[in-house]
């Protein structure tokens, strides 16, 4: 494709780039959440906390004491680490800075979907473990949403995989870069719509879950983490922010892959970081605007929204199948 140092030429170089990518994702994640909150506040004519507030919150939480219910088992203590580790593992696999992504051989789209589900599963278990009523309610709701949302993620990305001929995320992005006209095809547009709706559902944003309230009748994510405190809560919140960033990276880099570095030079990587940040800001602004415009759906109407996104993904698959 291009001259210059081929990517992931050496395993060491690839691993270093992978580490840098995951580190960048971890560092940016709270900022993205803070940015969405600040934008929402401005849109609602409030002053709002600055965008770096989540960093301060995380620092505060890490230095606080942990209180654990006497009813909780080892699972309650282990879950935050599993959730954080599984989400951080995805950060290595999603193409964020360069294609073919450095650790492409380690895992593809199917691994990413399973890692996402693993975190969700442990979060639900941790919600059930201390035996509080809210935790159980949240866990049951989260599982309802996840059962509908996870197949749609796989289906939407499969639509892209079909047209790229590979389930490898880096390959998919590289293929779209090589054939810009495909990015405007109906398969891509429909899959983007499907994945956007699912991203909102999976990361607990409006209209599925309200991230800014603790209203008992509506919460999903907050209900499950209600019993957590101190550094455990910090890990879970950080993982949730990271999950949002990873969905943004998937949306930004699989569908609009331009700006990804195709070879390792300082200039290309610097450009990739800048473009990634720009994409994150645009998506954050889109989510903030969207959340200000709409109200939360009643819980029983959430499956309807998710079946809309499932149908979009199904149509995306059909049209990319026909396109070949």
């Amino acid at each position: 494709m291009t001259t210059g140092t081929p990517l992931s030429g050496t395993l060491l170089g690839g691993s270093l780039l992978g580490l840098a990518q995951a580190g960048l994702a971890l560092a940016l994640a709270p900022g993205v959440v803070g940015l969405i909150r600040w934008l929402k506040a401005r849109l609602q004519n409030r002053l709002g906390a600055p965008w770096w507030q989540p960093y301060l919150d995380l620092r505060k939480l890490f230095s606080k004491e942990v209180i654990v219910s006497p009813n909780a088992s080892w699972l309650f203590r282990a879950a935050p680490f599993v959730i954080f580790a599984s989400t951080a593992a995805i950060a290595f696999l999603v193409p964020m800075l360069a294609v073919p992504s450095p650790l492409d051989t380690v895992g593809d789209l199917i691994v990413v979907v399973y890692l996402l589900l693993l975190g969700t599963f442990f979060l639900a278990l941790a919600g059930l473990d201390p035996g509080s009523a809210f935790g159980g309610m949240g866990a049951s709701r989260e599982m309802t949403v996840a059962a509908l949302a996870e197949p749609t993620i796989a289906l939407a990305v499969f639509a892209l995989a079909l047209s790229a001929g590979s389930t490898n995320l880096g390959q998919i992005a590289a293929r779209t870069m090589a054939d810009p006209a495909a990015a405007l095809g109906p398969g891509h547009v429909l899959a983007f719509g499907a994945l956007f709706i699912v991203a909102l559902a999976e990361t607990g944003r409006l209209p599925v879950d309200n991230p800014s309230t603790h209203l008992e009748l509506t919460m999903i994510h907050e209900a499950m983490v209600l019993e957590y405190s101190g550094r455990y809560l910090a890990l879970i919140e950080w993982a949730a922010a990271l999950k949002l960033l990873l969905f943004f990276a998937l949306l930004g880099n699989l569908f609009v892959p331009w700006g990804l570095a195709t070879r390792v030079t300082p200039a290309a990587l610097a450009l990739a970081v800048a473009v990634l940040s720009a994409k994150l800001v645009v998506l954050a602004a889109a989510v903030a605007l969207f959340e200000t415009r709409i109200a939360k759906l009643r819980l029983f109407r959430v499956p309807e929204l998710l079946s809309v996104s499932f149908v979009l993904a199904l149509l995306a698959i059909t049209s990319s199948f026909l396109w070949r």
Partner: protein
Amino acid sequence: MDGTFAKLAVIGSSAVLILGLVLLWRRRSNAHIAAFSAQSVALAATIALVGHFTGDGQLYTVAAILLLLKGVAIPVLLRRMERQFGAQRELEPYVNTATSLLLGGLLVLLAYVVTRPLVTLSQLPTRAGMPLAMGLIFVSLFVIISRKKALTQVIGFLVLENGIALLAVLGTYGIPLILELGVFLDALMGFLVMQIFVYQIHETFESIDVDQLKGLRK
């Protein structure tokens, strides 16, 4: 050139189909009317697009009439009807929303299977959009049989008309203008007759839920 045309035609037909699927998703009549209006605009744009790439001037006329009739005039009439009946929602359709959406997806798949011989036979660059048009026809028929409110059924019929027009323009680059004019007149007359029916149903039952037509009225 042909590649761009094919792609734009598929994007246009996808937009028309997606706006048709909104009928299965939303419950309020004004959302249905807005979707129908937007769909007619998208259809007119697709027809104008085909006219542009094939150099057929008549298609522009068809697109303009369609835009005025289905994009503006009929939605205005529909809104007036909706206002008179009050904001009645499609509360309990025969098939619930989530299932309808999944069935809608399956109907589009069925349309792909059904139109496969047609698509392989056709040489036109627009052929990839034909399954989508057929899918829209199936979906709108499904709307007509699965919804209880007379107004929703009328909109379903109008969307069916749009589906047939889309299939015609994609499959044969449009039928002659004089026939098209006849079709428009038919659609308008059909709509006006149905409007009278809906008013009569409302007069008799004080509701436009066609489920009530099943029982005898004392």
